[in-house]
């Protein structure tokens, strides 16, 4: 089934996302990155390059490497924007016969749509590789201020790339979708988008599920790159003051400054100060020089204050154009990586007098919104089935009152789980299945849901019978518990209604109590487990002594019997250490017995098989159990 992808086709970077199991997911590109540079090129050998690879060769091939093509989409050659931006790009542009813009690449004159198509093609291929299936449809975002011909150019780019563009949606609208704004009632939303190279402010009106653009404004040459530049300049200037060398003249040093500046800027979004440490940045007659300097958050804010200030004018203008003041704006959304900076967030908060939404990754939020729109347009091919989870663990009580979980809490239902249990005593012919709900290790501390008995188990040594206990919860939360004796195929079951459990408050309380009592509960559980192990060991030992009578020395018999007695005596008390130790010692003596036996003859004697799993607390026939009945508590 072909998937519809959501594409944020940005000026500097592009992002692709898709709906996956009802959730939007960003698709990484072939190089493993979540952002793909919006750069394409035709190499000297005629190879078409797009993304990071194209960026890497731009210096050697500036004539044929195209970046920021978005600035020219759908515009006429004589458009003043084109006039201005043309001067800032190294590639050649010309005018088509109909007045459109043409870009010279690889000796050919291409339209901006054709160039954008190369980017989209790479995004499409990488998405197909990731998803493992063909991608033929997409939703692509554009700035809210794009006019008809700019939107058409974007759609054309999609078509050229082999994508059926289901819809072109506005970037601020996409961002609003990503934050679930469409679920709300009538709202006024401001989207503050400060990306790598451009700043856009949009005021949207949401009414009856439809987003209307009330006004837009911005600064097409204000972005994170400018912030980086301020830091770079400061570093270079400081260094020049100290050492008299201008690092900007040294290509390698400049590169290191750039990386250091960007890293520092990012760090200062979460710390108050950071060190920029660039050893051997350059050298002069007196030897190598190092750049080590400390940059504080407040200094960074000083350096960039003017840039943040530049965004205030457009915001106020946009509000004025929409005929609204700050108090009439219901929601504010942040888009673009630079909005991670605390000073920017503060500024936005002051401008609108409210806390902006920033939970979704600001670099990816537009693509995510596009994916959500794609999902809506495509419609649910599969009905969305909302599934519940079981809020508390479910299980049965086993030997010693231990709560043995079969289904963990927060397991999605419907679900089914089986486990094999056995008897606790010799000749036990029935088992009692006591179902509980809760997190405590001891069954008595949990909520009892019901109990029933399975009888008719052929009498044999304890641990031999195999009783399969199955928990099955259906989509409505109804629990069916069954116990089946594998030997006789006899089965009993109980049905527990969903409502017989606990309320939400009780559930929360249970979980908290489990945490509080975790250590003491664990101790109790340890004791019970130690008991069970020791008891089992003593039982096995006695059995072996009897079965192998005459095949070992009387000395050994006395030793082992002594150890067994020690275990039994330890079991009278509650000392876990004592119980464990005596059981250990018994095991060691038993090993001697094993050696003695196998030393004598070929291994041929039957070893009693270990007990099958935990043993449910059960009653022997002489304790007067009621057979076949169950009672719901």
């Amino acid at each position, binding site marked *: 089934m072909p998937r519809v992808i959501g594409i944020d086709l940005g000026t500097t970077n592009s992002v692709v996302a898709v709906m996956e199991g009802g959730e939007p997911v960003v698709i990484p590109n072939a*190089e*493993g990155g979540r952002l793909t540079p919006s750069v394409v090129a035709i190499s000297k050998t005629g190879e078409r390059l797009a993304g990071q690879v194209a960026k*890497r060769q731009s210096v*050697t091939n500036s004539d044929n490497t195209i970046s920021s093509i978005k600035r020219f989409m759908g515009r006429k050659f004589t458009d003043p924007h084109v006039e201005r931006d043309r001067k800032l790009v190294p590639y050649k542009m010309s005018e088509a016969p109909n007045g459109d813009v043409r870009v010279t690449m690889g000796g050919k004159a291409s339209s901006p749509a054709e160039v954008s198509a190369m980017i989209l093609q790479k995004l499409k291929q990488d998405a197909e590789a990731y998803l*493992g299936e063909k991608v033929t449809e997409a939703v692509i975002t554009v700035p809210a201020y794009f006019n008809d011909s700019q939107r058409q150019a974007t759609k054309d780019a999609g078509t050229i790339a082999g994508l059926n563009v289901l819809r072109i949606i506005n970037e601020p609208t996409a961002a609003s979708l990503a934050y679930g704004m469409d679920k709300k009632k009538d709202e006024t939303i401001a989207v503050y988008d400060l990306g790598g190279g451009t700043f856009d402010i949009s005021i949207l009106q949401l009414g009856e599920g439809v987003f209307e653009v009330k006004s837009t404004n911005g600064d097409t040459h204000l972005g994170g790159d400018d912030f980086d530049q301020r830091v770079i300049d400061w570093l270079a200037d400081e260094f020049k003051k100290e050492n008299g060398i201008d690092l900007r003249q040294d290509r*390698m040093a400049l*590169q290191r400054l750039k990386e250091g500046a960007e890293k520092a800027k990012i760090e200062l979004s979460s710390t108050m100060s950071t060190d920029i440490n660039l050893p*051997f940045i350059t050298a002069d007659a007196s030897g*190598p020089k190092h750049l080590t300097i400390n940059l504080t958050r407040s200094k960074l804010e000083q350096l960039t204050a003017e840039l943040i200030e530049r965004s205030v004018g457009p915001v106020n203008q946009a509000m004025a154009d929409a005929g609204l003041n700050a108090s009439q704006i219901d929601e504010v959304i942040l888009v673009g990586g630079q909005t991670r900076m605390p000073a920017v967030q503060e500024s936005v908060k002051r401008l609108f007098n409210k806390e902006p939404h920033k939970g979704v990754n600001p670099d990816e939020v537009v693509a995510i919104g596009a994916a959500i729109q794609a999902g809506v347009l495509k419609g649910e*091919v599969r009905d969305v089935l909302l599934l519940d989870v079981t809020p508390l663990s479910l299980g049965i009580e086993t030997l010693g009152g231990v709560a043995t979980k079969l289904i963990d809490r927060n397991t999605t239902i419907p679900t089914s789980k089986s486990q094999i249990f056995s008897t606790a005593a010799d000749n036990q012919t029935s088992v009692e299945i006591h179902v509980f709900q809760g997190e405590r290790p001891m069954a008595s501390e949990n909520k009892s849901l019901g109990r029933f008995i399975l009888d008719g188990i052929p009498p044999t040594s304890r641990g031999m019978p195999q009783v399969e206990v199955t928990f099955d919860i259906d989509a409505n939360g109804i629990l069916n518990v069954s116990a089946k004796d594998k030997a006789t195929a006899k089965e009993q079951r109980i049905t527990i209604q969903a409502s017989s459990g606990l309320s939400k408050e009780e559930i929360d309380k249970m979980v908290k109590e489990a945490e509080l009592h975790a250590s003491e509960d664990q101790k109790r559980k340890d004791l019970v487990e130690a008991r069970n192990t020791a008891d089992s060991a003593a039982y096995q030992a006695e059995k072996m002594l009897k079965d192998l009578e005459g095949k070992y020395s009387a000395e050994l018999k006395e030793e082992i019997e002594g150890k067994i007695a020690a275990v039994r005596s330890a079991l009278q008390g509650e000392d876990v250490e004592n119980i464990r130790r005596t059981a250990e010692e018994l095991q060691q003596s038993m090993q001697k017995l094993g050696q003695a036996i196998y030393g004598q003859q070929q291994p041929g004697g039957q070893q009693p098989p270990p007990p099958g799993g935990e043993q449910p607390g059960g009653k022997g026939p002489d304790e007067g159990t009621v057979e076949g009945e169950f009672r719901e508590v």
Partner: protein
Amino acid sequence: MGSEQEKAEGEGEGGTRGETPAEEAVTGANTGRDAESHRSQLEEEKLKAERCLTNWQRAEADLANFKRRTEQEKADLIRYANASLIGKILPVLDDFERAIGAIPEDISSAGWIDGIKLIDRKLYNLLEQEGATPIDALGQDFDPHVHEAVMREDGEGDLDVVVEELQKGYKLNDRVIRPTMVKVGRRKSASH
């Protein structure tokens, strides 16, 4: 379909039960309506069942695809988990190389200098053991998949070639952690 047809059938057969045409018509219509409502109910149920089957199939397919993708992601994670950490350590390796490249003449034979060189070797070997390998650049044809051009010099020729390595690049298994930062020049290809 429906009662019209029923009636027509009844008439065509000339009254199977020998009732008066009027009675027959009425009875025919009744059983016709029942049969029809059952028929349409059956159709409805069939559609529902089909829909359930389709949803189930799609859900299974979704799960299968998700599993496949998760397996792939796990494998990738294991292979490239260290890429990020190694990428962060590379600048330290770079600084060591710079330091060694700038050893002053007069102390170049000092034992202490040897020690620093050994530390550099150690760090390099450690990264190598983790699967990081340096990218071949100097003298190679320029390849934007593994090289990043930051400077260019003019020259004679039709091929781009790496004339200087400014910063070493590294691969982890087959993925580029950091491309080599290079200066690109020109050379003539063999056919010239």
